[in-house]
């Protein structure tokens, strides 16, 4: 049994957040990954037990969503967006460089068990293409060299910060955040960067602003 009673208590706590407990299944499976590094059979059975549904029903859900893994991820999940925009703008080269560096293909774990490499779909950061993620934190505007540098530094145990997010922890820590987002890291790192402000800056420079409120119209 890898799912402790404490984890089960957290599952019950998640279930209590919702009008119907089954709604907590997705966060609960994230919680399983935060403990087990993957969705284990134990984790599935624990979710089923807490929610009073069958293990097959949990399995059906666990196998539907891309973020749930059926084999150990390792310490860090490394994603490279190779959807059209990121891929063609350089994500393909970034992926190739990482694949070569780590000696693995997509959805594989490196021999030392540290990295999981994955071609991922659009991360809603197209303005920052090519985009890479480490433990799902943004690493924007990467190049093959900068991406390899990131994994090298992580491999050496050095601190690496997300470009729009906190210092990288590990895959399981992020999975815990997805179940319990109030992880105290909200103030860490810059969430807003120059690309998110580019339009605002131009507007400010050129003196453009939204129309004023017509007199007497405001509620």
């Amino acid at each position: 049994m890898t799912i402790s009673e404490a984890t089960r208590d957290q599952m019950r706590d998640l279930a209590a957040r919702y009008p119907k407990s089954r709604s907590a299944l997705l966060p609960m499976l994230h919680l399983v990954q935060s403990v087990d590094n993957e969705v284990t059979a134990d984790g599935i059975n624990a979710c089923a037990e807490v929610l009073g549904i069958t293990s097959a029903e949990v399995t059906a859900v666990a196998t539907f969503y891309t973020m749930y893994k059926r084999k150990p991820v390792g310490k860090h999940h490394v994603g490279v967006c190779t959807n059209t925009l990121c891929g063609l703008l350089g994500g393909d080269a970034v992926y190739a460089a990482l694949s070569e560096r780590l000696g693995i293909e997509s959805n594989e774990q490196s021999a030392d068990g540290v990295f999981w490499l994955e071609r991922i779909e659009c991360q809603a950061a197209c303005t920052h293409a090519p985009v890479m993620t480490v433990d799902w934190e943004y690493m924007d505007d990467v190049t093959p060299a900068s991406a390899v540098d990131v994994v090298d530094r992580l491999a050496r145990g050095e601190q690496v910060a997300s470009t729009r997010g906190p210092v990288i922890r590990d895959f399981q820590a992020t999975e815990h955040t997805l179940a319990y987002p109030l992880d105290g890291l909200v103030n860490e790192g810059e969430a807003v960067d120059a690309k998110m402000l580019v339009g605002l800056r131009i507007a400010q420079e050129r003196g453009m602003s939204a129309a004023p409120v017509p007199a007497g119209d405001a509620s």
Partner: protein
Amino acid sequence: MITSGLTPIITEHWDKPDLYTIEGYRRVGGYQALAAALKMDPDAIIGQIKDSGLRGRGGAGFPTGMKWGFVPQNDGKPHYLVVNADESEPGACKDIPIMLANPHALVEGVIISSYAIRASHAFIYIRGEVPHAIRKVAFAVEQARASGFIGENIFGTDFSLDVVVHSGAGAYICGEETALLDSLEGYRGQPRLKPPFPAVAGLYASPTVINNVETIANIPYIIDRGVAWFRQFGTEKSPGFKVFSVSGHVVRPGIYEAPLGITMRELLDYAGGIRGGGEVKFWLPGGSSVPMLTAEHLDVPMTYEDMATAGTMLGTGTPMLFDKTVSVVKAVTRWLEFYKHESCGKCTPCREGTYWITGVLEKFEHGHGSPAEVDTLVNLCSQIAGRSFCALGDAAATPYPAALKFFRAEFEAATTTSANEQFDPVASYVFAETVTR
């Protein structure tokens, strides 16, 4: 009608480092709209949103006020507001930035919207791959709760609200609103049969409104500044403003907030034009699910109606621009690989059709297609479009015919010449000049 220039409204204060905190948000007038709204009759709010003409910013452009108006009142059932923050459309990156930079605009919009539709429970369903956005929104919700804007008897009224921030787990289909509901109920995110529509039987079979992040973020401004102010922007049929994310081979990719009705040419001008003084080969106004356009369409106003006239859709309003280094064959293949990967599997045309089309396109990408297949693919797309269970199938059937319309020769060439032979892949990289060959 203001249809040009940049109009920072939702983005106006993004340069203030503490905007994501409740203190920072209130310093720029945040939660004033909520105070005002709670003094209004809920129906009056629905009326005001109807009058504003606000249309859903998630892609379909359905009038928001009308959607709210479908919720039956005094039906004795709980009502729910669900925010669709599953932004996963290839090319769309405006909801995640809103949540990263200005989460309280979303939270304030959620509270007002819940009040209007008489919901005492709201859910913000955020795709799981963006932990930092989830943090920001969860933190904003907690701060709002601590300030008494969420919880029991808000502002001493008899309106009570709980807001739950929910993490998804990686499935594009969950952007489809009924699939999102199934996912939020802890099931596989497969779309539901309609009717019943969510407004009547949505989450937990109760009346539910599902709105996009940007839509909800508009609400406080409309309440605070009024309908007439709002309708100054945009056109009669597409009133308001839009957070445009401009991406691709432009000099300054990023977020540009502008009135609806602005042209791509003007936006492209702000974005510094195509890199290296190049030209647009093709561009998509709102995600991979809308038909592509070319340089000849740069002057089409970015409105729901004008885009439709041009044979495409405004979609998420998040233009992607590609220059002439790009192989359209490769671009379309990659999108189809995406739709294949994200097809939920429920219906035959989408599940099997994306499997088939992707296989053929991958041959094309490698220069092995047959000339006959250039047209077979059109027919296969027509076997999906309008026959699949939900819009994902329609979306998957979109890129190829749209691309073929403008670039038939390129696909025909792909029957003998691979995409990489037709177009040097390195040339399309943003860091192309740094690559030593």
